[in-house]
């Protein structure tokens, strides 16, 4: 707990010694991007943007955002440590990803805001209007595609001339690189390994993502928002998507690419990737909290007895919460979906929610595992 607080208040990378303003900005960036703050700030940002969407959907806001970002980028680019990470050839696409994802998310949000207003006024949506018009396959589709193809190819050729592919160490299982980073699109999953055991972060959760994505057409009976942008008609679904995709996928990709260095330690964007940086690692299982701190006893030897608090908590979480919610706050949803769909949805949802819950508990109370049974390789 004290460690988490300490990291929230101070820490977040070795201090930078520059000019006072530059140093202040850099130190603030390093401070802000510390994973706890980074995640909390990201959640707050998503919630804030969606809540104040009318403000954020304005063109000048995004223009100002990109202008400020560019200025910051230009400033940051002068810093050798930032520069080294950003200009690494295989990190360049992530910089592009950063800009494009933000832009297209903003675009969707803007259109959603416009559409919602139009709907209020009783007008058809933007996409609805467009859908009435027809165009020819040739030239409007195929010809433009051809031109795009050519320009894209030319772009790739130029890219390959200007930025040479990185050569890393010979691939040897006996001598793995440090850090062993996943391909960029899996870096979000790799971030989860900080909080979960591999069988969860690497096997179960990705499986649930795939199963969940496959299940959407069967779970989602709401016809609204089909073929057009909207927020107000589907606030939960869209917020869920923003959190799930932008936060837990894209922003973790960025975190993993730019801010995770040797030993998977966190490094601020202006921090030198020091191999010897140490991270405090004193996480404690739930069973310790229960038996040692609460009951003031040594932990029982039998792992099932020892882990009983966690087992009970998790069983409660997965088995008690769905019927409880179904009977109370989600009564309407159960009626719409039926019990089977509701239960499937609730379990997927609860697994999803478990991620921020566990992260929060890690940051606040240094929780290692709900259930820690290394005897059976079963840690949750």
């Amino acid at each position, binding site marked *: 707990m004290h460690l988490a607080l300490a990291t929230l208040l101070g820490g977040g990378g070795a201090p930078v010694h520059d000019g006072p303003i530059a140093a202040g900005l850099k130190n603030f960036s390093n401070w802000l991007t510390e994973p706890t703050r980074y995640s909390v700030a990201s959640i707050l940002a998503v919630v804030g943007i969606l809540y104040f969407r009318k403000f954020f959907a304005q063109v000048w806001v995004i223009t100002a955002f990109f202008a400020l970002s560019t200025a910051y980028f230009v400033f940051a680019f002068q810093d050798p440590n930032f520069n080294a990470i950003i200009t690494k050839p295989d990190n360049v696409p992530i910089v592009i990803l950063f800009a494009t994802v933000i832009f297209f998310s903003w675009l969707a949000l803007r259109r959603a805001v416009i559409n919602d207003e139009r709907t209020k006024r009783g007008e058809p949506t933007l996409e609805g209007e467009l859908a009435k*018009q027809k*165009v*020819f396959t040739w*030239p*409007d589709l195929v*010809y*433009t595609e*051809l*031109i795009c193809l*050519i*320009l894209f*190819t*030319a772009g790739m*050729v*130029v890219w*390959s*001339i200007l930025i040479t592919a*990185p*050569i*890393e*160490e*010979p*691939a*040897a*299982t*006996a*001598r793995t*690189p*440090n850090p062993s980073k996943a391909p960029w699109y899996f870096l979000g999953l790799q971030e989860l390994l900080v909080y979960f055991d591999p069988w969860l972060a690497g096997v179960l959760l990705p499986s649930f993502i795939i199963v969940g994505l496959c299940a959407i057409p069967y779970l989602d009976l709401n016809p609204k928002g089909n073929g057009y942008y909207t927020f107000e008609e589907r606030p939960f679904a869209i917020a869920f998507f923003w959190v799930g995709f932008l936060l837990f996928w894209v922003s973790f990709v960025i975190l993993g690419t730019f801010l995770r260095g*040797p030993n998977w330690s966190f490094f601020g964007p202006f921090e030198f990737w020091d*191999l*010897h940086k140490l991270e405090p690692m004193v996480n404690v299982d739930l069973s310790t909290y229960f038996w040692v701190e609460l009951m003031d006893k040594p932990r029982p030897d039998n792992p099932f007895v020892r882990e009983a608090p966690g087992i009970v908590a998790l069983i409660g979480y997965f088995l008690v919460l769905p019927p409880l919610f179904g009977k109370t706050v989600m009564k309407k949803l159960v009626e719409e979906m039926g019990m089977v769909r509701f239960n499937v949805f609730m379990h997927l949802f609860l697994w999803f929610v478990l991620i921020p819950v566990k992260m929060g508990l890690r940051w606040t109370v240094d929780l290692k595992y709900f259930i820690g049974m290394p005897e059976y390789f079963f840690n949750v």
Partner: protein
Amino acid sequence: MADRGDTHYSVSSLNRWFLLSSVVILLATVWMMIDDWERPWKHYQRDFREIEIAKARAAEQELTAAGAAAREAELVKKVSEAEQRVAANEAKIAEVAERQRLARGELWKAIETAKKKKSEYNWDRYLLEEKRLREGNPALDQEMLDETDLAMNEAMGLQQDLEAKKLALDIELSDLTRERDSAKKALSIGSRDLEQVRKRLVQLDRAAMSAPEKVADIIRDAPGLDFVKPNLKVNKVVLDKLTFELNFTKKKRIDMCHTCHLGADRAGFEGEDQPHATHPRLDLYLSSKSPHPLNEFGCTICHRGSGEALDFVRSDHRPTDSGEQAAWEQEYHWHKQHHWDYPMLASEYTEASCVQCHKSSMELISEDAPTVSKGYQLVERYGCYSCHKIDWFPAKRRPGPNLRNLQAKLTPEFVTGWITDPKAFRPTTWMPQFFHIEGGNYAPGETITKSKYGAGRNIEGREWDNSAISAITAYLVDRAPLAAMPAVPVEGDAHRGRETMRLSGCFACHNLAPYGEEATAKDLALARTGGNEHGPNLRGVATKVTKEWLFAWLKDPTKYWEDTRMPNLRLSDQEAADITAYIMEDPDGYFRDVPEGWKPKLVDMAEPQLREVLSEQARWFFARDGRTAVEERLERGEWADLAKLKVAVGEKLVANYGCFSCHEIEGTQDWMPIGAELSNWGSKTVDKLDFGFVKLDPNYREGWLMQKLHAPRSYDQQKIKNPSEKLRMPYFGFNAEEEQAITTFIIGLVDDEVQLAKMIPTPAQHSMDAGMRAVRQNNCAACHMIDPGTITFTDENGLAHTIAAEIQPMSEDQNVPSAHDLAAIKDDVEKYEVDELTFRVLRPEPGVQKGMGDKVFVAPERLVATTAPHGGDFIRVVTDYYMNGIELYDSSKEGDEAYSYVSGGSGDELGVYDADGKLRDHSSEPYDKVRWTFAPPVLWDEGGKLQRGWFFSFLHDVVSLRPQLRVRMPSFRYDPGEAEAIADYFAHKSNKAWPANFTRAARLAAKQDSADFAKAARMDMTALTEIEDGVSMAIEASFSKVLAYASSKDFATAKNFTARPAVNPAYEASVLRSKVHLDARRAVLANHLELGEAIAVKSVNCFQCHFRLGTPPPADPIAWAPDLERTRERLREDWVRDWLINPAVVYPGTAMPANFASTPPQYQDRYPNSTNSDQVQVVLEWLYNFDRMYMGSPGQ
């Protein structure tokens, strides 16, 4: 496409977009091709081609200047003249040529017909054979086959006729054009060199090419087309045997370095800039004749770096200094390749790579790889291996003295002072400093925080270190209880001791070098006569040791320290007592002279304070015993006595700092070394090294090591650590050169994953290497000259010659100038006002046309360089002493007057006590004579001179050959195999093969162990062991059979082979003694032994100078020579024969006269009608049967 007006996008605008995008992709493609064409390595190859063209042009010009072109023009003229003359016959030639053409046509037709007929015949024959077999009738259809056969024969006959016809026409035609053809041939031979250069130019230089060649050449390297058959292409070698370990598989190394470094393996580009320059050592590397050719070894196995990269930065080039680094960063955007585990070695560390293959031949490569070899020797000398395991390292001896009997030698005060700062007493010691290291563990102002129990107080660094020293002293003293040394049995005489010490050889290993850098002239004079660094500097030693210990040590060093390198000089009690007296009384002021500031004393701390600090140290180092237990011991229990506390803490400190690794300390035998293993340190990737807060940019392993050696504890700086966790490596005070040498060696210690091409030494290399190591470790070269020095001079034609030679004294009373210093020789020339320097040739060199011992006169200005002889410094010291006494310096006087000489024995005379106890003055003898008589012998061809078995036994059990020598061959304590190695080494050096090596060679070749070999060779194991150990009898008697076995490697050849000789082998070793030989000789010349005796004793009188069965010769000791009785078991016959014929050829300058050199031959009264060689032969036979003549030995 027309714009229909009903599309969403305007078609013409789309067309424009299409045009634009097409142009963009076209430009991108062109850019891509140019980018490829512009790759840096192609630039380098183009540049190299320019250099080659320039070189070829220069060569062409040179040849032209040397008249080649004129000669060529003349030959061309002759060709055209011949052509004109031949042209007169043009009609005739044309006619013959036409007939020849027709004949060729006919012949071609005939050949084709004959071929066809032959195949028809073969086909028919096959069909007929098959038909006959099928129908069972062996005579079927013979006439049909005959018919085809006839047709074939006719066709072949026609072919032969036409061949003859064509041949006749060929001859006719060539007769007609002969004149022209031979002129052309003469032209092609006469202008061959020029033609080669031109061919080269036509290949390289577009200006020299014909138009189509030029176009082809341009197209070959044109952008976009250069994938077909370009001139500019990637060169690579694939190295099957040199592999990377990759995922448990072995990946072949691929080196492409010579894509840019085109000139690396070719001579002639020495002066070019990189990457075009020739490798500086083509004799050793890259060229096909060198031991490391390019296509077998590549580049990265030595230089490391990424061999498959074609880019300057990617291949991980390495700047030599920060200046170059900055320049490279500017020019190439250079940066370290963080993902390449084995970055290129900076050139000063490249020798590290030698170690990976040459672990078993480190001595052999010492000349070609001086840095790594020095590092290896430093690691051996400083004993790095005793704290840091190095698994293959051959030396395992503890580098520090045994401390089990410490108190007999030293006082606790000395021990404390010594541990505090060893260099304060002896600046040249290799004992490192553990405490009070500035910037290291505990700086004086630093505090050590109180222990984790919180019971003590924070302690200042100096207090901490002083208490630790006090504790270690107490522990060492405790472990070495005082055992009273026996008193010196006889009274010593200091003056006699001085002479004995000077003359018995002490200063071959020890020196009396002055302290510090401000050495006085007197000190330098002393250093000149004692510059050796093998043993410790003896200055101040009388203040260190006790008299009784010193006497016992001189008598037998191994009694005190079994592993010491100090040999036993077999001093008598009197001699040892004399030396002891000389050292302890110190009349010359060396042995009580200690550096300023040195004062042995116990740690100066009040008892309560000392107790407090020690208690705190106990809390730290006894932490494992538990807090309560430690506190109990401190307060009430066993540590109430401060002495006990000191010993207890001292033990922990000795364990912590690893004192026991270098010194043998009672009770610590089983403790484990404290350092990190270095066996494969060079394979450690840089990310596994803790640089602490020391910023090294870029960070390389070498830098880490250099820093570690320079400031061993600097990686602790600014780190918060417990005292028991702190770095422990002591400060050795290496200079930059030594740090670099050691670093180079350690970097070379890689494990096999880097490469698998181990060098397997031949038995000869193996024994040479082992021998060189033994010679170095036992410091043989201090006394003996192992190899002569060389001089390089230019002759009248300006050609440089290098010969093995030594300088002759310029006048009779002058000493031989040292060849060590060319400048000094030139000074001597001025001093003695001679026009020429005289050198004696010690090994003949063809170009000089001088034999052994001949004189070469060289004017000083023609002398280019000299190299020092290997070893023999002590010869000069001894000879000087005999001639001049000891040089002393009186600083109150100036110039030459300040120097005086004092002899050992009396005060005034320049005399030396000889072995017979008489004082003799040799100051008026010629230098050479004194040198050959009294100084240690030279060993130029010792293997060719001595029988190996005798050599071996002599090393083990030294006998006195020249009793007049005061200098003596010490008795060394050899490690197993060392004495054999020395004997083998000298034998190999003289190209003498020995059974011991053959048995080893045979064993290795047949991959057998000793037992198998002995069985196969039908010898018993003892005999084999004796052969391999070099026991003389087995060797000499078994030589031929072992040789036969070894050369055949075939067990059958070795049948009937037994190693046990029938007669006493010690006396039957030589051919000249064998029954077969003697019987044959007696048949021809019955009294040959008597004849030999008559010549040797009555005419030449060998016994005038040589000992006879232990009886000293009547001559003055300066002429004494070894006992002739030893010849038969000691010397090789060939050598003795050469020696008798002309001793000066063997040892130029020797006093032995050439007794058999005159024409006509002498001694006809003793041996009528004999030639010189007849006389030598009978004398040889007499020498080798000396025992039979005088001792009644077996075999008579």
